């Protein structure tokens, strides 16, 4: 498998050229653009980030078949995990959803009252669901993880707060795009509708990766800590 995934000695610029959507992950690490010719290792050192952790996220984000092995997880410094996930949540809530909402309100305004109100209603419900999902993770799962990381014992939150709920969040966005380009008559505002569909698809793809990070990194890491505590 070695050679197929990103490594610490690759240039950061090459990594981003391989998968441009990683640009979205940079601010969540606090890494600004302007990499020059520096390697992933050098950039991470510059911003005080553990390179193993950053690579883990990059690889899950990019390669569908990448699965971190247990030893690898053991050796990785996970201190930036919760801040990373929280920064992702902020990005979805404070940037992407308002961006989509602006486009959606525009489309809803042009599509006529009936379609408009159905779309607005669907989106409002969706936003509520996202907020609730993130809240429950930040309220229950993250503090639990942090207490495990500090060697403390806490009660395990119910498992439904974990990754499984993400599929539904991603599915609903897929449904919304289907509805938009199949059933909304768009005479006179096709461009606006396209913008909206693309904005939703981009969020959907990003959320899907976010779910994978929780599924492939967060969950196994929590389970590992739990086993270590029991053993």
């Amino acid at each position, binding site marked *: 498998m070695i050679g197929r995934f990103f490594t610490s000695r690759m240039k950061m610029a090459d990594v981003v050229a391989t998968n441009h959507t990683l640009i979205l992950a940079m601010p969540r690490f606090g890494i600004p653009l302007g990499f020059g010719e520096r390697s992933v290792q050098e950039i991470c050192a510059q911003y005080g980030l553990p390179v193993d952790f950053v690579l883990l996220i990059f690889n899950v984000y990019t390669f*569908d*078949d990448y*699965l971190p092995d247990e030893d690898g997880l053991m050796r990785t410094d996970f201190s930036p995990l919760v801040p990373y996930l929280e920064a992702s949540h902020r990005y979805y809530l404070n940037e992407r959803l308002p961006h989509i909402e602006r486009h959606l309100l525009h489309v809803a305004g042009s599509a006529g009252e*009936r*379609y408009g*109100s*159905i779309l607005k209603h*669907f989106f409002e*419900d*969706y936003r509520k669901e996202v907020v609730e999902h993130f809240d429950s993770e930040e309220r229950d799962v993250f503090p639990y993880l942090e207490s495990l990381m500090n060697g403390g014992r806490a009660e395990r939150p119910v498992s439904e707060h974990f990754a499984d709920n993400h*599929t*539904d969040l*991603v*599915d*609903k966005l*897929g*449904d*919304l795009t*289907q*509805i938009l380009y*199949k*059933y*909304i008559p768009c005479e006179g505002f096709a461009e606006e509708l396209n913008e909206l569909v693309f904005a939703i698809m981009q969020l959907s793809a990003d959320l*899907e990766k976010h779910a*994978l990070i929780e599924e492939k990194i967060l969950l196994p890491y929590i389970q590992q800590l739990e086993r270590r505590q029991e053993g």
Partner: protein
Amino acid sequence: MKPKIQVLVCEPSDIVREGLRSLLDEDEFVLQAPMREVPADMAQRISRQQPDILILNPTLLNTPPRMQLVSIQQARMSMAVVALVYEYVEPSLLSQFKTVLDIREKGNRVAQLLRECCQPEMEDEEGYELSERETEVLVLLAKGCSSKEIADKLNISIHTVNTHRKNITRKTGIKSVAGLAVYAMLHNLVVG
């Protein structure tokens, strides 16, 4: 006699392909010339060979895999595309397949699994229009009924309700109940 089920296998491993062949009875299944990879003209080959079932190793799909899968499916809508899985595959991709054949599946279950996954398709070739029954199920879903409640109301089994739900999703492309409710409203099936 029932026509034999035409099976096309797309899988790189000789061992796995041969193993699969030995598990399928020749009287029931015809194995078409197998493929080691997804060829560039996959869609044309499928429309020529008309397999009932395509057994596909999802790791053979190129990026973006979902899009490629859609174009393969469109070459023959009634074909059941089965994922042959022996390593981690993204659940969101797997959900696009008709069913999943795990490499650890018991030998005697394999034929049964394939038989099941091509049955509804052979009966139901009507394309994308929702049947009357599916529309009824959709309306009840949109009104917030659970599968159990729908089964009771329509006097059918939960299993049948779930088959209808799968078909509704396959035909409309919409997965969530909230999305189906919007679909129903936009098609004037329920009052918004």
